[in-house]
């Protein structure tokens, strides 16, 4: 069952719809947002130059910094009398970014979140325990408003107060939960510690998780512990909040609500648009938003797009779970490598920790990658060969998984330089 017929349009109908929305959005930003008009003029383009979906590559990118530079409301395309909701990101570095929604935007948000809830099988009979943070952050209220519109009973539990959350989860008999994957694990640990029988005491059948990356292993673990379907929800406040994409019950890939949010994958270094299947940075253009329409927003998230049909019957394209951040991407002899992928490989090998440091250097024309890895505190041997075998094993695993040749150097526990408690991951000594 789907929530909206737009989830299973034919490719040609979908494209026609996207193009008409795109033209409308381009006209809107050109005439109503001075920032975009200036950008268009600098590039020498006019709204009339956009005649096909491919023409989108002529349009300028929007970066997080552009939102900061126009703080707080400079990129809004409507007056404040039209705005019904404002959210903002925490500005740990620089100014916060601010986003605004019109009534129409709230409808769209409810629409895409309705699709997400439907992917998880929710109906008005369900009870949703919303353990996502409420406040300026789009998470909590994003789930909340949409659930209410679907007449799903919402329990606005937010985060924290774990013991009480468990009590309410059991006594109210919630059938669905939202939150971060780490909070789901934390709740399970606490439930065990407090003597709950997880599968008997709780009635959960599905969980909607997002806001932080989770490996396939972690997703399966959460699904198994709670006995639930794991639905991954992707979103970012600059676009709308949760609901940009989400996984269905049939695969770990996430359907993009591309009739509202047009996705492209680009090479983060050159800005060039990549083919389906290639990994690069996700760029999103809002097609239907009014308050804060955004053209080609650089999400910084690395993924790839596939248009292989999904068994659930939806025709919306799908993206992989985010594999990394473009800021962290390293290009080693033409191969894209993300620290998160290296971490994943290391986490499966005994006798070492995942405290590592990548040092990239040029050797002639070639890139040379060294990885220093801290030994586990429990590992020590009197045999030089044992160290060499461990080193060889790690090099072999990295070559197999990531197609990169690395020189692994085993180092003593706690010897890698830390910054605010975290090991400094990447040192790039190549002249760029």
């Amino acid at each position, binding site marked *: 069952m789907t929530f909206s017929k737009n989830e299973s349009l034919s490719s040609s109908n979908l494209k026609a719809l996207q193009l008409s929305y795109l033209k409308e959005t381009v006209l809107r930003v050109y005439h109503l947002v001075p920032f975009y008009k200036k950008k268009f003029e600098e590039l020498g383009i006019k709204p009339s130059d956009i005649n096909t979906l491919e023409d989108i590559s002529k349009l300028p990118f929007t970066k997080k910094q552009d939102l900061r530079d126009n703080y707080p409301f400079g990129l809004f395309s409507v007056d404040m009398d039209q705005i019904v909701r404002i959210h903002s990101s925490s500005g740990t570095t620089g100014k916060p970014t601010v986003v605004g929604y019109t009534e129409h935007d709230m409808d769209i948000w409810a629409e895409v979140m309705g699709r997400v809830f439907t992917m998880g099988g929710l109906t008005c009979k369900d009870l949703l325990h919303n353990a996502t943070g409420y406040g300026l952050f789009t998470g909590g209220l994003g789930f909340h408003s949409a659930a209410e519109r679907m007449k799903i009973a919402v329990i606005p539990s937010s985060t924290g107060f774990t013991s009480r959350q468990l009590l309410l989860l059991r006594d109210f008999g919630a059938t669905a939960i939202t939150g971060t994957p780490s909070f789901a694990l934390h709740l399970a640990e606490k439930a065990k510690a407090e003597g709950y029988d997880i599968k008997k005491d709780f009635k959960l059948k599905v969980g909607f998780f997002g806001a932080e990356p989770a490996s396939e292993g972690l997703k399966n673990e959460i699904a198994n512990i709670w006995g639930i379907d794991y639905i991954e929800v992707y979103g970012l406040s600059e676009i709308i909040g949760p609901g940009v994409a989400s996984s269905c019950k049939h695969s770990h890939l996430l359907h993009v609500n591309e009739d509202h949010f047009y996705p492209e994958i680009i090479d983060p270094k050159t800005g060039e648009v990549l083919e389906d299947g290639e990994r690069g940075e996700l760029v999103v253009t809002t097609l239907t938003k009014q308050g804060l329409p955004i053209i080609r927003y650089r999400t910084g998230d690395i993924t790839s797009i596939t248009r292989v049909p999904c068994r659930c019957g939806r025709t919306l394209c799908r993206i992989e779970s985010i594999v990394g951040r473009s800021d962290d991407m390293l290009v080693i002899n033409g191969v894209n490598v993300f620290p998160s992928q290296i971490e994943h490989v290391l986490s499966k090998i005994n006798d070492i920790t995942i405290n590592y440091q990548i040092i990239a250097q040029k050797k002639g024309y070639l890139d040379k990658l060294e990885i220093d890895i801290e*030994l586990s505190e429990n590992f*020590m*041997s*009197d*045999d*030089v060969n044992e*160290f060499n075998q461990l*080193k060889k094993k790690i090099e072999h695993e990295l070559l197999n998984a990531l197609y990169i040749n690395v020189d692994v150097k*085993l180092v003593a526990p706690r010897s890698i330089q830390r910054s605010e408690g975290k090991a400094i991951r990447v040192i790039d000594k190549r002249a760029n």
Partner: protein
Amino acid sequence: MKYAIKQLSVFIENKAGELSDFTQVLSKNGISIKSILLADSTDFGLVRTIVDNPERAKAILEEEGFSVRFTNVFGVKIEDVVGSFDKVVTALAHENINIQYTYSFYEANIGIFIFSVEQNSFEEAIKILEKNSIEIVSASHFYA
């Protein structure tokens, strides 16, 4: 286990200052190094050392962040005749005992060979040497 000398194996990185950091930690704490052997790889070193107070040395080194492990080794007095080393090696080889590594040092004008064999054939090695009337140095000889 009268003859089992607790040798410390310590992992150190192959960079300037690492070895002296290690020796300084011991000397600062009044632990005397009887013997030291450095097994090198290009990236790291494995220091094998016999000290006068192995338990305390291990605790102190671990507190300083070194990875340390005990390995039992035994010492044989070097007799002042040609072939004394060979006698030990031959006796062990005869009974299929593998010598992993060996090193020697002098203390108070007595030369001592240190042998490391696989840990599960340690007891057997000692029996063979006793049978061959080879003089093994008792571990307490090294400890303060």
